[in-house]
């Protein structure tokens, strides 16, 4: 269930679509799903570290973001990553900000 709006079965994020004809996804079998999940978390963490936020996957079904003080937040849909991370950081993460761009380049 979506932790923000309460809708059931909402996690069909475009980056990880349900496997169906004509659609590009790596959400095809258990192995590729978990591999891509791990890659996604690693890629997100390269950006989130700018605000000292960490993302972890939990049991392949949910995500947990946490900050340096140990506060954390659990969510199920990948589409909530950035709102949840910004709420935890207390600040926005702007991909067009020079500081963020320079940070990402160094990772």
């Amino acid at each position: 269930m979506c932790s923000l709006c309460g809708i059931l079965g909402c996690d069909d994020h475009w980056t990880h679509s349900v496997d169906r004809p004509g659609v590009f996804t790596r959400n095809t079998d258990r192995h590729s799903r978990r591999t891509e999940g791990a890659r996604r978390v690693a890629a997100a963490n390269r950006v989130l570290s700018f605000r000292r936020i960490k993302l972890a996957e939990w049991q392949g079904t949910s995500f947990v973001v946490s900050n340096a003080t140990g506060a954390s937040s659990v969510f199920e849909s990948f589409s909530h990553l950035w709102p949840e991370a910004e709420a935890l950081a207390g600040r926005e993460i702007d991909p067009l900000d020079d500081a963020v761009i320079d940070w990402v380049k160094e990772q």
Partner: protein
Amino acid sequence: MIGVTLLTGFLGSGKTTLLQRLLTDPAMANAAVLINEFGEVGLDHHLLDRIDDNVVLMKSGCICCTVRGEVADALMNLNSLRTRGEIDFDRVVIETTGLADPYPVLQTLRAHPVLRSHFENAGVLTTVDAVNAARQVEHRAEAVRQIAAADRLVLTKTDLAQDEDVSALRSTLARINPAAPVVTGADDTNTIIARLDPALPPVPDTQDVETHHHHHHDVNEDLGVVTFSLTIEESVDWTDFGIWLTLLLHRYGDRIFRFKGILAIAGEDRPVAVHGVQHLVHAPAHMTHWPNGPRVSRAVFILEGIEPERIRRSFYAFMGLKDTKAVA
């Protein structure tokens, strides 16, 4: 899956007239039509005279702010009736109000847990009034958004406009949304209906690639809209791209009217087409083959109030690609 076409266009741009004509074509005989009543008089409804029992009239006024739930309810109702065998239809056309932004309806189709298993987006068809559109796009942001969100544009009232005005308007449309094919309302219905088919690949215009610079943008200051295209020779990491675009749309989706891209993904032989409207990204299409021309990634953004150069820098940084070219 039943295709849902969104028929949009500014007030008085001829949506209903077009719909009325299209519904007389045998190819549209099995279309279910949802129209949105605007204001107290359901004028659009009274003008539609061939809608059988397949019309559900939405009564709450503007589609943007209030009827997302009603769109969902109306489609759910259609689906129930069809499942029970009480009606049959092979496509749905939703006519929005003249001031509606197409994004919330597309989002409803994409996100609703039941609808997304039964209906798919068959594209946004925007009517553009050849007599008044030139003035509307200068003064009304909704008009620009509707044109930018279109998969296909239908020029209406061309018989009432001067030829030079029509050709000026065509060039304005090409600046706002270069990827959308334009037909005219005077074309025969087959031509227009052919444009309703979802098979139209969601890729940017491929004709200009060889003459384009690596990074190209057209700033239409008079319209407040920037059309910005990016050509990337290196293959793109799918995971990094997903993180970047998700974050970009989270922050700037309100100002990105439209984007379309065809990507050479690392490790994949066939290209992947990604397109969306504002915060919404459609399921990426795994294309069967590359279009003609060089096999490089291309993306087109239609933006308002964002410098293209910042997007380009951000893209290269997030993709871990070496950024050597400047904006042309």
